[in-house]
Each structure stands twice: as structure tokens, then as C-alpha cells.
């Protein structure tokens, strides 16, 4: 296995990989750079790369626009709220399926997964109708509930795969050691499950944050999260690239950081354990 690699070959791979890595990353990098330019510099011909007067005026301008802070707040409430609501419902279900599996467990899991594959347009009008009926159009609560529902199968699945990795022998050991069910959950199960729950929360906040069908269709202003806010972002043509960039960077930065932390969980969460 350990084979000596010639430094030249390693250098070659390094250059190649960095080239493609930066190429793929370039749109984000360019947006980042543009967000610190003055509007005129942003559309300069030929394009300006690194050497310009870096300014944060775009960020202050965007933050100053009345709707931006509201959209940011909405995004946070909706992403975090729907994830936590989902976790509360999913933890007991995943726990039961992992530790007390019955004959139907597999069928229930597969059925939950199948609900994830329902195309949104199949239920578009009824949801608009229901939302109007309960008078919750353009409200945070509506989106919290809907995003919880569309991500619930993924949450259950991820938790289930994490819980299944907790060896049954350890729980039996706790039982032998005299732990009651309550103590078993507090001292043994919970500490071992926390990392799995944390990564599930992380990935689902990301998914909810970036959801861009229901958030666009079911909100107008008061509950509009960043997805919606950005989609309607416009200003006098040609002179808004820098502000657009600043708004974009602020919308993606926190999630980008979280995403980098959850790379591994991403594979697990989005393939439902089909790729390990």
C-alpha cells in the first residue's frame, strides 16, 4: 500500500487538482471579490481582479435595505425551526426503529422515503388552498411546517443509520450494570447519539436554508427568506453587481461554512445509506 510517489508526479496531480478546484470555485470567488468593489469597478472592462479599492459599502447598503435583515431572520427561523421540529418528531421514531425493529420497520422506512420523492407540483394547489384556508399564507409557521415535512424522511433516515451503529451490546452492558431505562438513555444512549443528531441537524439546516420552491411560492414579503429575497433582487440594470454580490455572499457564507463541516454526513444523508 505505502508506495513511494515521485515528487514530480505528486506536483503534477497537485497542480491539476488545484486548477480544477479553483475553476469550480471560481464563481463563488468572483462573487466574493465583486462584493468588495464599487459598482463601477464591478463592471469595469477589462475585469479587475485583486487590485482595487476594497470597500464594504455594498454590505452596509444591502443591510440598510429594509427587507434584507427581515429575510435573513426569516431564513434562520424557518431553517432552524423546521429542523428542530423535525428532530423532535424523528428522534423517537428512529430510536424505536433502530432498537426495537419489528417486521414492518423496513416497510415503514421505505414508505417514508417514498414520500420524499413526491414532486412538489403534485401538491401545489392544495397547499396554496390549505394555507389560504388557515390564513397562514406568507407566514413563518407555514414554511416551518412544510419544510419539516419535506425533510422529515431524511432526518428519520439519517438518525436511523446513526442509531443503528450504536452496538446493542453496550446497551445490554448498561442494563447489566444496573441502569434503569431512564439512566440508560441519559448516561449511555444520549451521549453516544449526540454526534449523529448534531450532524443530522446541520445537514437539514443546510437543506432547509437552500429550499427554493415552497419558499418562493408561498411567501411574498413578511415571511420571505433569503431565497425569495435574492430571487427578486433587482436594481437599475448594470449598476448592481456589487450589491448583488454582497447580498449573495451574506446569504451563502454561513451555510458554506456549515456545509464544509458536514461533507461526510452529506453523502450519508442524501443517499439514504446506499453509498458508504
Amino acid at each position: 500500500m505505502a508506495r513511494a510517489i515521485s515528487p514530480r508526479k505528486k506536483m503534477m496531480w497537485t497542480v491539476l487538482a488545484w486548477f480544477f478546484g479553483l475553476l469550480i470555485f471560481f464563481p463563488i470567488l468572483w462573487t466574493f471579490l465583486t462584493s468588495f468593489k464599487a459598482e463601477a469597478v464591478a463592471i469595469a472592462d477589462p475585469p479587475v481582479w485583486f487590485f482595487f479599492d476594497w470597500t464594504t459599502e455594498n454590505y452596509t447598503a444591502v443591510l440598510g435595505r429594509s427587507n434584507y435583515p427581515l429575510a435573513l431572520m426569516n431564513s434562520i427561523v424557518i431553517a432552524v425551526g423546521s429542523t428542530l421540529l423535525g428532530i423532535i418528531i424523528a428522534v423517537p421514531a428512529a430510536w424505536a426503529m433502530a432498537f426495537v425493529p419489528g417486521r414492518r420497520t423496513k416497510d415503514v422506512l421505505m414508505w417514508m422515503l417514498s414520500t420524499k420523492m413526491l414532486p412538489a407540483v403534485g401538491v401545489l394547489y392544495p397547499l396554496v388552498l390549505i394555507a389560504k384556508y388557515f390564513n397562514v399564507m406568507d407566514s413563518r409557521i407555514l414554511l416551518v411546517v412544510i419544510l419539516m415535512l419535506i425533510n422529515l424522511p431524511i432526518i428519520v433516515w439519517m438518525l436511523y443509520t446513526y442509531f443503528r451503529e450504536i452496538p446493542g451490546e453496550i446497551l445490554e452492558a448498561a442494563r447489566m450494570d444496573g441502569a434503569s431505562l431512564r439512566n440508560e438513555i441519559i448516561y449511555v444512549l444520549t451521549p453516544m447519539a449526540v454526534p449523529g443528531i448534531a450532524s443530522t441537524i446541520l445537514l437539514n439546516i443546510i437543506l432547509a436554508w437552500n429550499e427554493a420552491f415552497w419558499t418562493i411560492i408561498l411567501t411574498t414579503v413578511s415571511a420571505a427568506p433569503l431565497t425569495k429575497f435574492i430571487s427578486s433582487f433587482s436594481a437599475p440594470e448594470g449598476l448592481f453587481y456589487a450589491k448583488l454580490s454582497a447580498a449573495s455572499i451574506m446569504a451563502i457564507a454561513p451555510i458554506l461554512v456549515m456545509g464544509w463541516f458536514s461533507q461526510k454526513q452529506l453523502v450519508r444523508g442524501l443517499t439514504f445509506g446506499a453509498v458508504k
Partner: protein
Amino acid sequence: MGRITLDKVQKKFGDVEVIPPLDLTVEDGEFVVFVGPSGCGKSTLLRLIAGLEDVSGGEIRIDGNPATDLPPAKRGLAMVFQSYALYPHMSVRKNIAFPMKMAGMPQDEQDRRIAKAATALNLTDYLDRRPGQLSGGQRQRVAIGRAIVREPAAFLFDEPLSNLDAALRVGMRMEISELHKTLATTMIYVTHDQVEAMTMADKIVVLRAGHIEQVGSPLDLYKAPRNTFVAGFIGSPKMNLLTGATAQKHDAATIGIRPEHLDVVPEGGTFTGRVGVAEHLGSDTFFHVHIPEMDEPMTVRAGGEVGLKHGDTIHLKPQMQHLHRFDAQGLRIA
């Protein structure tokens, strides 16, 4: 005290009877080994005693008190698992302290017992590490430490050495035997390795398909196996079993002779064959001899320096006083 009695204990999984009604008594202070091939029900039996599985029928008594319906925690037994089952998020100290904490023992008593166990098990330097940072042997010791601090009525071991490498296994075997001598507490030990059973047990219980084939001391089993299964299972290398005409000469359906009870003679002898593989261990040599009376090669133990090569002709003479005879049902003929 730790006298465990099983009275017609039975276990079914659905319609499958894993353990037919079975009686067994484990005396206080005894080291009992359940041995048998995989799937013989030995682990299930241990888990029934532990209370990790519900019995389907019969009764379990610990020191004369009914324990059949007690949860595992209330039976006063400690168990060492095959995977050690240490709590990965707790330090060694906390792992060992866990059962005492659950029992609500005062802190100073906990500390005293941890210190004592750590000294006995050479864990003093590792008390603040996590299980993940320990070697297999050390984890094993932590698991044992967690069991002994409770001062249980009996210890249950579920194939505790199977995840260790060969050298470590021999060492841990000694340590567990030593521990038994020191504590003089009942121990029930499950293994599929008959060498472990022979070297450690006061009493061996040989199981096959949930049935007890024989109960006895290691030497009882070696000298007088009750049937062909026990004869073939106990002893290493395995006893040579012959059927057909050869056995009939001795008024038996099967006869058995252990490799160490065959003498190599210059000529004549009862069996004549061709030497196949020879295993030279230095002190001993095991010859696999192809003889017409057996389909499989006959194993013979000879002295370390017997100069026979592959393909040579060999004459063998069994020591008649060590010949085992079995009837058509495979049962021993006295």
C-alpha cells in the same frame, strides 16, 4: 454466594426451539465453561441467565431465590461481553465506576474499589483515557474491572477472548484463571474454543443444538467422553474415530483413539499406512497418516525427533487401555 440453578429452562424464538428444557446447577465458586460449536445455544443460555433474554419456560434460581422474572440489573450478576461493550464516551475510570454509580454507592467507596481494581488489572496509568485509546487487551481488562467492582454473585463471560490475538489470548486466559482463584466467585464462561475450556474450567458443559451433551471436569471429558460428539470435540488434535469392520472387532459401532495413544512401532502393529503431512513442533511431531481403514488421515503424536518423511510407511499400535468404544447411537460403551 453464587449458586445458579436452571430448572427446565427453555427458549424459543417464535416457533424455533433454540434450547429445549434443560437442567443445570452451577455451584458457588465454580468456574463453569459452556463450550460447543457456533450456533449450539451457549450464548443464548448465558443471556438467559443474565436476563438479557426472557425464558420461554422453566425457572432460574440464584442462591435459591427465583430470578426468572428479575430484570438483568437486579440479578446481581456481572457480564463481560465479546466486544467488551465499553462506553466510548466515558473515561476508563467512569466506565469502571458506572455500575457503582447506578447503585448509588458513596463516592469514597467507589474510589477505593476503582483503585483496587485498577491495581489488580494494571490499569492505574490508564484511568483517565478513553476506551478508544486503549489496546484490545487493555479494553478487555477495563471490561473485567467494570465487572469486579460490583462484587457480583457471579461473573458471566461471553467469548471474551475471541477478539484478541493468539499471544494475548494465552495471557488473558491466565489472568482470568488467576482472578477466579483470588475472588473465588462463580464464573460462567462461554467459548467455542475447547482449549480455553480445558485449561480454565472446573466444570465443562458441552452443548450441541441446545442440548447438554456432557457435564464434567476437563479430565472426565478427556478420559471418558460420553458420546462420539464429545469425543471428537474435546482434545487437540482431535481423537481418531474409526467405524466399520475395524470397530466391530472391538464389539462397537465406532472406536476412538487419541493421537497421543498411538505408538509408532518398527513393524507389525494394528494399522499400517503412508505418512502424509508431518507437523514438527519440536517437542512433538504430528503425523497425518493415510490408512485404508479411515477416509481421513489418522493423526499420530510421536516424539520430537522421529525421523519419518512424507511418503514413508509407518506402523501404528494403539494403547488398548485408552481405546474408546461407542455403540450405534454414538454412546459410550463402558
